[in-house]
């Protein structure tokens, strides 16, 4: 399988990954895969997990969304936040999940349900990816 290079760009860091064979991304309308010679384009990403397969290993990342720009020779993932599966702060994610759950079960009047759902999804996603 032909390999390509991937760049993960976030507001606070840039990660490079050479000789990638396959990426699976959480698209807004469902996840999709990218391999060499994928059609060029821009695809929006949702909260979810990103799987990157290189020649030697498979890595998992959790993200809170962004987009991916596929060019002729490289793939750029532009993400608002990204965490590698083994770098996720499980304690913080668990706390965030508990907080969100609590707020959901005791609804106060001034609560934004879409925001609550989003923080719930984010926390659950981070926990799930941390177990990979």
């Amino acid at each position: 399988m032909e390999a390509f290079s991937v760049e993960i760009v976030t507001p606070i860091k840039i990660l490079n990954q050479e000789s990638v064979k396959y990426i699976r991304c959480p698209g807004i309308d469902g996840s999709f895969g990218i391999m060499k010679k994928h059609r060029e384009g821009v695809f929006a990403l949702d909260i979810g997990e990103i799987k990157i397969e290189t020649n030697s290993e498979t890595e998992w990342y959790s993200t809170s969304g962004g987009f991916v720009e596929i060019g002729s020779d490289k793939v750029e993932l532009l993400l608002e936040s990204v965490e590698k599966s083994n770098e996720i702060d499980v304690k913080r994610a668990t706390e965030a999940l508990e907080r969100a759950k609590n707020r959901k079960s005791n609804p106060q009047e001034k609560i934004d349900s879409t925001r609550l759902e989003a923080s719930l999804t984010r926390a659950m996603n981070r926990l799930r990816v941390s177990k990979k």
Partner: protein
Amino acid sequence: MASLKDIRDRIKSVKSIQKVTSAMKMVAAAKVRKAQEKMEQARPYTHALEDVIHHILPDIDRSILDLLEVRKIKRKAYVVVSADRGLAGAFNTNITKVAQKEIDEFGKDNVDLFCIGKKARDFFKRRNYNIIESHIEFWNDLDYDSAMMIGRSIVDHFTSGKVDEIHVVYNYFINLAQQEIKSEVLLPLVYDDKEVVSTDRLYEPSKEKLVSSLVPRHLNIQIWKYLLESYASEQAARMLAMENATTNAGDMIKSLTLEFNKARQAAITTEMLEIVSGAEALKE
């Protein structure tokens, strides 16, 4: 005239103050560098994001984006970015002064406030301004999450129609010696039409959906930029203030030492006079 002991004690205390100020200066210098690094790191992301938005915008109907909606301005919100701590020269005073002036010009009663940093919150709270939200004590571990959190509540305030325009007042970091207070319109967002080379790219799910998920992210990165600019400015201002304080302490030590020596010499002279006149008296 102060006694020798008094002067010695003062020299001692000024010296220890000088130690503190010069340490604070060093810490501030390190923090400025860190903030500048963060600004550098955010640049590639910002460029890529703006690039994609500018590519898509000409092809879609802008009215679907509620963050771009220009309304008749009846009510405004101000985001005032200040620091949590003082000892940074006139940093906090200047920013609150400028913000207060602008707010009063529009009418205090028609302005909602988002206060970033303790100093702005305390200032406007004391004067009974209409504070919607204040974000404090996050500067020490400044991360992108705080920018997103602030971004979310500001966006909600705008899209729910509570205000028709949101301004941000912050310190723009020019260089270590210079910061400029700027007041900019944060919302509605304005995108100029740029000449773009159209490319045969695929946009998924659709251009409209893509851009409506990207525009809020663009706002977050702008808020991040404002936070970093202000943080760098705060630390630079503190560095300068502490540098001045250290120099002033040095001057003070110099003049106190002079005074100390004079006092000591005077004491010696008096003593000698006493001895000599005592000896003279004995002769007779």
